[in-house]
């Protein structure tokens, strides 16, 4: 495995995938944080797990965009004729992978860490009080879901792009 392949795998398959896979757990935890669904001791245990899980995901989201933008992306967009960007644009059949896929992915992916940070912060700051503050719980849930969707768009196009024009 080359250095470039290593970083591409770390960016997409490790950081990005952990974020996407852990989403279901965080979503379910926040969704069911309602007094009628869990006991008081259960709430304390749930909050502790949610805080750890959401901050882990948030850190993964930051690592994904920072490694993607500052390490992997310069290799993708290098000016030489063998770079993935050059190869995609050279062929009319593959141009849209760059002009639509990459152009969308590189921008929208940055939404995830900011929104996930806000959601994780709300869960940490309010803790068990979120059970009573239903609108804040729902707002955190929505931000968290939008962060997931942004990551999903970026991850999906990243996987396809790496198949069509891998970074080597």
């Amino acid at each position, binding site marked *: 495995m080359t250095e470039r392949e290593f970083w591409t795998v770390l960016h997409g398959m490790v950081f990005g995938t952990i974020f996407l896979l852990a989403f279901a757990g965080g979503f379910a935890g926040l969704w069911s944080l309602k007094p009628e669904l869990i006991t008081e001791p259960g709430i304390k245990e749930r909050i502790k797990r949610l805080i750890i899980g959401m901050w882990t995901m948030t850190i993964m989201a930051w690592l994904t965009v920072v490694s993607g*933008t500052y390490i992997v*992306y310069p290799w993708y967009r290098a000016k030489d004729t063998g770079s993935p960007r050059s190869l995609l644009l050279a062929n009319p059949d593959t141009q849209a992978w760059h002009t*639509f896929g990459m152009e969308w992915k590189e*921008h929208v992916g*940055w939404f995830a860490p*900011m929104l996930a940070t806000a959601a994780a912060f*709300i869960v940490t700051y*309010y803790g068990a009080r979120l059970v009573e503050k239903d609108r804040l719980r729902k707002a*955190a849930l929505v931000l968290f879901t939008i962060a997931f969707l942004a990551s999903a768009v970026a991850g999906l196009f990243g996987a396809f792009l790496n198949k069509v024009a891998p970074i080597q």
Partner: protein
Amino acid sequence: MNTRTDLAKSDGVAAAAVLVSAIGVFIIGSLTTLAEISESLKTALAWSGAVGPLIGKTGVGVIVWLILWPIFHALWRGKEVNFSAIYTLSLILIALGWLLTFPPVFEAFSG
């Protein structure tokens, strides 16, 4: 809006976190489209030759987010704000941010 209330019950801190993250998203979206309209802005945002204007678009969004968050946090902490209105505004900003990073939209402004 902004009436002093019990610190433990205030929604102000959550409102600040939601609004400021939405502003960050909106700025990244706006700069994505504005960089297509203005070649000089695109050049100005290219803080690094290797990364190109993406570094400036996302960098400005993150820097503004980092500056505004503690300000709004301090302003709204312990205050009862109109959370519903701030939340709705935030969702509109996030939706606009998404729209402005969607390639068919920003490419329509490309010079």
